[in-house]
């Protein structure tokens, strides 16, 4: 049975192997170059004390391959669900070949087990290889990426570590299950794509933030979390904060708000928040003030704070494991459904 499964998969597997080979051919040389650039540049910037500038430069240099590699890892599971999962059973049903194979001396349960197990394993291995290779390649960039492209940000998180393995297993099982229910290849592929995309959107938006209860705490305003100050024509004073938190570089910030001394939210990150009690004609926040760091201290003294809810960077691996576990459970559930279905419904 393994022979037959392999024989049926051969074309697609060879194709995928070629694509993975191409990916490796691009990643390996550029990855070594990237690692060398990083260590060299870092040594230079620590002496010269302008590492932020170096990080920005490095990221700019590698931005296109960085984004492209994320895209590859995100799309690969969907492709596996579409082209390996959905047709796995429907192709047999459409050509009636299931009637041929079910009448050899092998039970359908065993037939399905081998097909699912063997094909699924190769699918997961392919997606996992791509995911881990890209994780290795982008290691230096993940250390230095700007806000929005950091390791914990939803898109990057999904393309790193072990999560792609879970996605691939789930997409494959989803494709097979939908195929069994719909029984026709093209509608099954379309439905698989829609369902998988929905789950992949729901996961980072609705589920992942709550996998571990996020941390909420208040931070003093400073260089890292203040986007800018503004003095209006009528003499009032505004502060705009960012979604970054001081002392927690790389954290996944779920919300960042400016709160007044009584704890009331007056603005979310990116919006201007009106600060009362700051003199705009004299003192630290006046346009004529000497040091740029004096003004935040003045605002802090009045009791204004940044209130942020976030998942710290240290939770990267716990979150990866939990999320992969969830996808593994979903995969197991769908697989169970497939076995139930083949015993009771299909003919």
């Amino acid at each position, binding site marked *: 049975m393994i022979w037959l499964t392999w024989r049926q998969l051969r074309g697609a597997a060879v194709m995928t192997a070629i694509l993975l080979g191409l990916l490796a051919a691009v990643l390996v040389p550029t990855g070594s170059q990237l690692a060398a650039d990083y260590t060299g540049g870092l040594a230079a910037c620590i002496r010269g004390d302008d590492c932020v500038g170096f990080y920005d430069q490095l990221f700019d240099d590698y931005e296109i391959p960085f984004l492209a590699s994320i895209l590859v890892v995100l799309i690969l599971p969907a492709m596996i669900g579409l082209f390996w999962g959905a047709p796995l059973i429907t192709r047999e049903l459409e050509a*009636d070949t299931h009637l041929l194979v079910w*009448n050899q*001396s*092998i039970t359908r349960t065993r037939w399905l087990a081998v097909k699912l197990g063997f094909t699924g394993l190769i699918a997961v291995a392919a997606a996992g290889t791509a995911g881990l290779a890209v994780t290795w390649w982008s290691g230096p960039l993940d250390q230095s990426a700007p806000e929005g492209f950091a390791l914990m940000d939803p898109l990057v998180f999904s393309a790193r570590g072990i999560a792609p393995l879970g996605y691939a297993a789930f997409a494959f099982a989803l494709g097979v299950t939908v195929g069994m229910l719909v029984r026709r290849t093209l509608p099954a592929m379309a439905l698989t794509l829609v369902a998988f995309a929905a789950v992949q959107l729901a996961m980072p938006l609705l589920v992942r933030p709550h996998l571990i209860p996020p941390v909420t705490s208040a931070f003093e305003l400073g260089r890292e979390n203040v986007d800018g100050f503004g003095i209006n024509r009528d003499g009032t004073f505004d502060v705009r904060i960012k979604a970054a938190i001081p002392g927690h570089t790389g954290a996944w910030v779920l919300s960042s708000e400016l709160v007044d001394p009584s704890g009331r939210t007056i603005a979310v990150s990116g919006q201007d928040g009106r600060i009362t009690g700051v003199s705009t004609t004299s003192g630290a926040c006046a346009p004529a003030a000497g040091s740029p760091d004096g003004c935040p201290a003045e605002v802090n003294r009045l009791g204004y704070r940044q209130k942020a809810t976030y998942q710290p960077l240290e939770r990267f691996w716990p979150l990866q494991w939990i999320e992969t576990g969830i996808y593994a459970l979903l995969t197991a559930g769908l697989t169970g459904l497939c076995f139930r279905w083949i015993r009771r419904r299909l003919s």
Partner: protein
Amino acid sequence: MTTVLTAQALGKRYGRRWALRECTIDIPAGHVVGLVGPNGAGKTTLLKLASGQLEPTAGDIAVLGGRPGGTPAQLARVGFVAQDTPAYAGLTVAEHLRLGARLNPRWDDGMARERVARLGLDPAQRAGKLSGGQRAQLALTLGLAKRPELLILDEPVASLDPLARREFLQGLMEATAEHELSVVLSSHLVSDLERICDYLIVLVDSRVQVAGETDRLLAAHHRLTGPRRDPDRLPAGQHVVSARHTDRQSTYVVRTDAPIHDPAWTVTRLSLEDLVLAYMDKPAAADRRAPLEVQR
């Protein structure tokens, strides 16, 4: 083993429609059984139940004394060639044989290769490029080389041209004689079955109308032609299968074990085709069914 297939009040329902109902049959071993009936009569359903691809909704079925399809051992004993003889289009003839060898413990590789060579099939040819007749022969080879005790074929020749049809049935007949296996094959054409079947089951309207050895069936059925007469006035031992009336004349097909002595009738023997057609003549069968059931 004296019976290959026994069914007790077997029924299969799809939603609210019964595809097969109250099917009670007992097919002895060593026959080539023809299952005949119009399209949609339930032939495929019965055969799929026998090969374990469907679960019965009602009643019981046993094939070679076991529950169909449950275990690899049971699957190994029953061969099945599905309607339109499907094959993997992307696999070559040789790969199909390899598939058979890998998936069947009793696979007869020598026989399979010999058959393929004799049929002139190119082992390197992909099944998708074979003609309908060649593909049917390949499917039959797979079914035979599995060395089953019972081979089931569902409309194997329905889509073949007359020449391929004859070659297929010829091959089936030779293999049956050589390997002493029982065969059940279905068709909606009696002419396909006439030459090779020695046992007949007529299935009409999801019910078994008649089943038995062809010789005995032919001996027990007669066509009576004579002056117009009501069916009530026929002797008690004569069961009307079909009836046709004109103003003056009545034509009956009756089943009886006793000889017919009534001088008013012209008695003629039926061909197998006439016999089957008589049972497919639905209105008469429906009229007669009710009293028959009361008698039981």
